[in-house]
């Protein structure tokens, strides 16, 4: 077995390789989409052919892909992500404005889903034949069957247009509830299955033999034992929210990373797309690393 230091180095090297791979792939893919930023501007602003060509040269889009990529990589390594082709401001500024919105939306939704999933799984384990126990499957099927944007559209229709309770744009509460339900549905099923399984473990029988109350057994013994599964599922959902909240942000007009990505792709704003993707890749890798670390903290046993 390799030492801890080597393990950490291998992990970092692997992460760097992954980020590089994603960057290359996105670099090629965005340029494979027909039309570039100047085409979009030309349609919008009525540029002539020669004006457009001059603009392309000015933005550096006439250079070969390899040269463009090398230039971008060298910049990124220095911390310079370039300037937006459309907004003419550094993409880093745009990104820094958008990240807090996405983080707030993701954190609030994740917290809602986490609390809901844990509460439902706890009650369902304690009272397997109760109404709450059937919520496990209802939430799970909800999250699988109903895409968040569908629920979002219906919510806008009902609460904003028909009932007039909430504004259509800039609303934070409805997307948090919709994403929270989605997260709860994904987390609650595996968590409950694990807790049911653990209920038959020999050490849970020991806890019963001590004379502990069932609530204390479920909260103090079964839930800690299920923590690795809970953390793994929460990590997966968190990673999906970093980019996956895109439709919610666009639908409810929240100026987060998702909206930024949407606008960047529509405008063929290559530097902005690349910066957003770089952020997403690093964020997902960080979340996975944090999940691993948290799992190691709750389970003191050595691996293997």
């Amino acid at each position, binding site marked *: *077995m390799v*030492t*801890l*230091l080597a393990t950490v180095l291998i992990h970092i090297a692997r992460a760097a390789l992954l980020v590089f791979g994603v960057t290359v792939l996105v670099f090629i893919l965005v340029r494979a989409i027909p039309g570039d930023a100047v085409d979009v501007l030309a349609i919008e602003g009525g540029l002539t052919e020669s004006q457009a060509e001059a603009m392309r040269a000015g933005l550096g889009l006439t250079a070969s892909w390899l040269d463009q990529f090398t230039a971008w990589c060298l910049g990124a390594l220095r911390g310079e992500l370039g300037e937006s082709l459309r907004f003419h401001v550094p993409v880093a500024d745009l990104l820094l404005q958008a990240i807090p919105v996405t983080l707030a939306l993701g954190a609030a939704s994740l917290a809602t889903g986490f609390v809901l999933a844990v509460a439902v799984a706890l009650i369902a384990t304690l009272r397997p034949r109760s109404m709450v126990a059937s919520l496990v499957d209802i939430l799970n099927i909800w999250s699988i069957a109903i895409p968040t944007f569908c629920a979002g559209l219906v919510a806008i229709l009902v609460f904003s247009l028909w009932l007039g309770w909430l504004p259509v744009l800039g609303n934070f509460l409805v997307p948090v509830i919709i994403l929270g339900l989605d997260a709860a549905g994904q987390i609650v099923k595996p968590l409950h299955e694990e807790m049911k399984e653990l209920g038959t*473990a*020999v*050490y849970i*029988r*020991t*806890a*019963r*033999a*001590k*004379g*502990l*109350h069932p609530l204390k057994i479920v909260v*103090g*013994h079964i839930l*800690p*034992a299920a*923590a690795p599964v809970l953390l793994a599922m929460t990590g997966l959902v968190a990673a999906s929210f970093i980019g996956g909240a895109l439709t919610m942000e666009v639908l409810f007009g929240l100026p987060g990373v998702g909206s930024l990505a949407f606008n960047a792709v529509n405008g063929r704003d290559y530097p902005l797309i690349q910066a957003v993707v770089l952020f997403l890749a690093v964020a997902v890798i960080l979340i996975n690393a944090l999940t691993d670390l948290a799992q190691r903290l*709750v*389970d*003191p*046993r*050595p691996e293997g």
Partner: protein
Amino acid sequence: MAALLDVRDLGIAFPAPNGMVKVVDRVSWRLDAGQTLGIVGESGSGKSLTGLALLRLLPATARLDPASRIRYRDSDLLDLSEADMRSRRGSGLAMIFQEPMASLHPLLTVGRQVVESIRRHTDCSNGEARLKAAALFDEAGLPDPGRIGRRYPHELSGGQQQRVMIAMALAGSPDILVADEPTTALDTTVQAQILDLLRSLQAMRGLAMVFISHDLAVVTSMAHKIMVLRSGQVVESGSTGAVLSAPESAYTQGLVAARRRLGVRTQATVPSRVMEPECALELRDLCVDYPGRGPFAQPVRAVERASLTLSAGRALGLVGESGSGKSTIGKAIVGLARPTSGELTLFGRPLADDGWRLSRSMRRRCQIVLQNPYGALNPRLTIEQALIEPFVTLGLNPPNGRRSRIVAGLEEVGLDAGFLDRFPHQLSGGQRQRVCIARALMSEPGLLICDEIVSALDASIQFQVLDLLNRMRAARGLALLFIGHDLEVIRYIADDIAVMHRGTIVERACADDVLDAPQHPHSRALIAAMPRLDDAAPSEPDDGWRAQHRSA
């Protein structure tokens, strides 16, 4: 005087496709304060369920016979509400289980688990409970009782884990301790220490105990009274001395005889047709390292300069505590562990020449049977499919066809062709182990490594397996490397014994010499810890003793 615990007509059944199956049938017994009742039986006799029923911890699918009565002090436990029963678990009756590792919560410190138990049954602060836990750890004989509570179960040895379980069971100052096979998973020397601890705790605290085990020798060393269970029914009960000296039922006579027979060694007839038997196995200064854990860890030496020889038709017993490296030697021989240095020669071929890997022809000649027959058979393969595998992987085609060879092989181990279509879960543990042995013998190996192959089996089945191996030895000149910790079993089968301690072979001689006149202090400790039927059963506590403890 009314008994402390009075069990009447206890009946337990499980639902099955065609009606209920009775697993415990009208079992009755009494237990007085300070006494120990031993419940003996083979697997499936219902002894563990009887113990679990006392704390009402039976599996959810189990059904109690409505006529069952469990009277403890002033109440019938079966009439209590769940909340009232809870208050008696841990304080009236406490329980310790067979597998200490599995019985402790793996993610909580042992201190926390004991503190929780103390605070459940006594009104005290967390700090006071910690002090009490340390006192209990001390009473249970754990080292460094003030700080061991911060450890997690996996950081403790099996014996220490069981001591933690005992401390936890004592946390509520129970009257009755139900011990379900508390030492079965432990080494013989550790078993002796735990049994001593239980005896002294019982004397100090005046505990009544229900001691459940499959091992007659262990039970007789602990119990005042014995109850023998078979298929859920009491076949015999009485004082330990009476049951041992004059067993009434044929079943108990068989159990006693089986245990006594283990003490006698059979001289297997070594084939004399070969004057100079072939050397099947030779180890010279063999070392095996395992990689260490954690950052900057050094490799751990599992086997240190081990030297052995084993000729065709001979049986060598390799004994030692768990962690002594005996299983590692077995693994190294069949190529499952890579030696660091030294020589390992199989049938004259040095294994190092092949990069420590066994060639196909060598795998045909060296086979291994492992301890756990439950894990060694693929649950989705029928017995026939499992037995065909050696022919497929080794590319063998026996002269009369594979199927007839399989049937013959099954018959050799005392099973018939009716087993071919069954799946492993439809077989008992003993039958499964015999299938594993049949599978290992399919390729007609010259060397068979048996790694604790009978420790999971009941005494009567142990014999069938051991006798089978002895027959193979005589008939085919099979060489046996028999790894185990049960010296009675080793005495029964082995010509020579090698004793291992912390990776080194500390003593090696013919079996009788090692067992009757052990030279190395560690061998002496191993042999002294062996439970024997002749151990004096504990005498009935007299009334003076009891009165003294009641007033204390």
